């Protein structure tokens, strides 16, 4: 995976004319202490991180934690007091004005919290602004603007003025403006923060859809943890200018680094954080031509009453129960005994999308995007994952596993390793 943006030890102090604040900060003094003693505001306190190509990296923190300051150092709108910001081969923090403009014109754009659309320009002119400053001709600009507007579904509003549009539409224009120059990196500073909750949800979903297609490298700022968990491939939790924890949504919810993060995640909707492959267990599965007697042996070993059946390509085809196997002749192939109507979910579904599948009470089969069987979930165990205390979140490595032997010794093909399935998910 290529690293698109590399931030190294960036700090920013406001009103620190004599550098006293920086030395206090290096001595490990707290942000409010430094402000109280010498009136210097610590905006960013020694932050380092890397963002991979095609990743949505979310920076989440309360108001005043330094998110806007940090995101503005990334495109040089704010010069950090110290540290490096590497984009391509350039250090944004130290390159000259001309080079910085070039980077802003080609490689990195921004979407603003309050849209920041130019009220005297039409929607299309707004969207084409980056191309205009780059010196592109009128027709080319217009065409690129219309294309970018089409991506956000606003091509019909190209000649409207921004104030004729609703907030949600205005921010779509803001997004189109950010996309029109086809940058590698998109900075978004609380882009949906000024929108109504319903519109915000709509925009979040749209961004997810858009990102599937565009695969931009996105730095997304938010103060809303649920938004962070929904959008972020990785999330950084920021407090008093410093990163407290960086990790995937699942990491942060199931292993909060400290009490600050713990307090945050306490009332997170876990059903929207954990996916089927996060909570799926390894489970033995039976090839479709296995005879009943062999299948029974596998199930005995595993101590289960139901096993999923796969074909030669490991695709899920059904499930058999101990009852049917015992009632059948020993050499009947399971193909003739299995129930093909089994509840199954894709590994990427969130828990809140699994409730219907859980209704029958039977174990739910989990498949990857090709339909291959990767594991199964006991409906009863789902609720364990929704409880907010950490031990419940850790269930997958704990008590529930006792029901199944971790390393079944059966000669039959074993359930694919759930861990592998997890690693195949992008950006984990």
């Amino acid at each position, binding site marked *: 995976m290529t690293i698109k943006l590399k931030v190294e030890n960036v700090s920013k102090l406001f009103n620190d004319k004599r550098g006293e604040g920086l030395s206090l900060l290096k001595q490990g003094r707290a942000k409010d202490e430094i402000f109280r003693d010498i009136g210097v505001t610590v905006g960013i306190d020694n932050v380092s991180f890397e963002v991979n190509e095609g990743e949505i990296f979310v920076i989440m923190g309360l108001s005043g934690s330094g998110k806007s300051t940090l995101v503005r150092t990334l495109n040089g709108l704010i010069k950090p007091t110290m540290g490096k910001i590497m984009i391509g081969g350039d250090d944004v923090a130290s390159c000259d004005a001309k080079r910085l403009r*070039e980077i802003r014109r080609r490689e990195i754009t921004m979407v603003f919290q309050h849209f*920041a659309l130019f009220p005297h320009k039409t929607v299309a002119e707004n969207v084409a602004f980056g191309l205009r400053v780059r010196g592109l001709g009128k027709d080319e600009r217009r065409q690129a603007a219309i294309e970018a507007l089409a991506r956000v579904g606003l091509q019909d509003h190209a000649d409207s003025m921004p104030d004729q549009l609703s907030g949600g539409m205005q921010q779509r224009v803001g997004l189109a*403006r950010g996309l029109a120059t086809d940058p590698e990196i998109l900075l978004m500073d609380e882009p949906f923060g000024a929108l109504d909750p319903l519109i915000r949800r709509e925009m979040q979903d749209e961004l997810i859809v858009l990102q599937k297609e565009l695969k931009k490298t996105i730095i997304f700022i938010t103060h809303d943890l649920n938004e962070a968990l929904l959008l972020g491939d990785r999330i950084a939790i920021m407090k008093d200018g410093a990163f407290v924890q960086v990790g995937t949504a699942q990491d942060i919810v199931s292993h909060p680094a400290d009490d600050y993060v713990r307090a945050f995640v306490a009332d997170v909707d876990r059903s929207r954080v954990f996916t089927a492959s996060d909570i799926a267990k390894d489970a033995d599965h039976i090839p479709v031509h296995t005879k009943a007697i062999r299948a029974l042996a596998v199930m005995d070993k595993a101590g289960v009453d139901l096993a999923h059946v796969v074909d030669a390509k490991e695709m899920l085809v059904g499930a058999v129960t101990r009852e049917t196997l015992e009632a059948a002749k020993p050499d009947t192939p399971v193909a003739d005994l299995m129930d093909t109507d089994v509840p199954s979910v894709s590994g990427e579904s969130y828990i809140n999308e699994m409730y219907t599948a859980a209704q029958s009470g039977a174990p739910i089969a989990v498949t990857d995007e090709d339909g291959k069987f990767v594991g199964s979930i006991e409906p009863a165990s789902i609720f364990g994952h929704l409880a907010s205390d950490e031990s419940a979140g850790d269930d997958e490595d704990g008590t529930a596993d006792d029901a199944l032997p971790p390393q079944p010794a059966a000669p039959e093909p074993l359930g694919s390793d759930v861990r592998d399935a997890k690693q195949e998910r992008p950006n984990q």
Partner: protein
Amino acid sequence: MSPSDLLILPFEDWINAFVRGFLVPNFRPLFRALQVPVNEVLQGFDAFFAWVPMLAVTAAFALLAWRVVGRGMAIVTIVGFCFIDMIELWPETMTTLAMIITSVLFCTVIGVPIGILVARSDRAWKLTRPILDIMQTVPSFVYLVPIVMLFGVGMAPGIIATIIFALPPIIRMTNLGIRNVRGDLIEAAEAFGATPTQTLLEVQVPLAMRTIMAGLNQTLMLAMSMVVIAALIGAGGLGLVVNTGLGRLNVGQATAGGVGIVILAIVLDRITQGFAEPGKGQKTGLIAALKSFVSGQTVEPASQTYSDKTA
């Protein structure tokens, strides 16, 4: 007992020595040269307004007033201008108009760049502000003294006095307009790689336009108020009519001149105010207005608002 018993300062002599002994002999050519562009522009406008028929001028102003302000103002313009013509002051009014336009033009050309400059540097604004304060507290009469010393009398010196007197508001308002442009819009321009000049021309100046127009309106009104005073040092037009009327104790003539000035002032004031008011003037450009006038349709800035549902 007072300080003057102890010491008398020959202040007058100092000033005389400075102006007569230093400024005038050394800089006369410069001051003469300064008059040249003013004279050229003034004569151009004067000749133009003398050449254009009264009805054409009236029609043009009425049209402008109609588009920028409204129908009522268009009627006021027509009635007012006809009245001026019927009291036989049309040529004088056109001379005054040429003088005003010349002064305001120079004020704009000088004032807007200065305003932009001081808006971009706090230090420059700190230096400029007290100068503007002084310029606006000095009574207009007092300007005449050094002007006459340096430039002599006549049309051009009168206009130069007017330019200096009317300059401060446009500088102030340009500065204010540029400084008041929303910070995130400037950030947005920069974030997309605009140079400082591009940011200025694409974002700051257009968004400051209304405020600059309000400054232009104030500048214009100050210039109008100098019409009579400038006539004292040889500028012509309606000011001269008022002055001669007063000199001959001809109340009728002085009043006629005064009424002419008032009518012209009202028309110019309302039209320039219209440009500065929100919702008018900017979206419907002059060209569009003229086109619509010709085609008989009205162009209104579209004001539909879409709800999120239609998105």
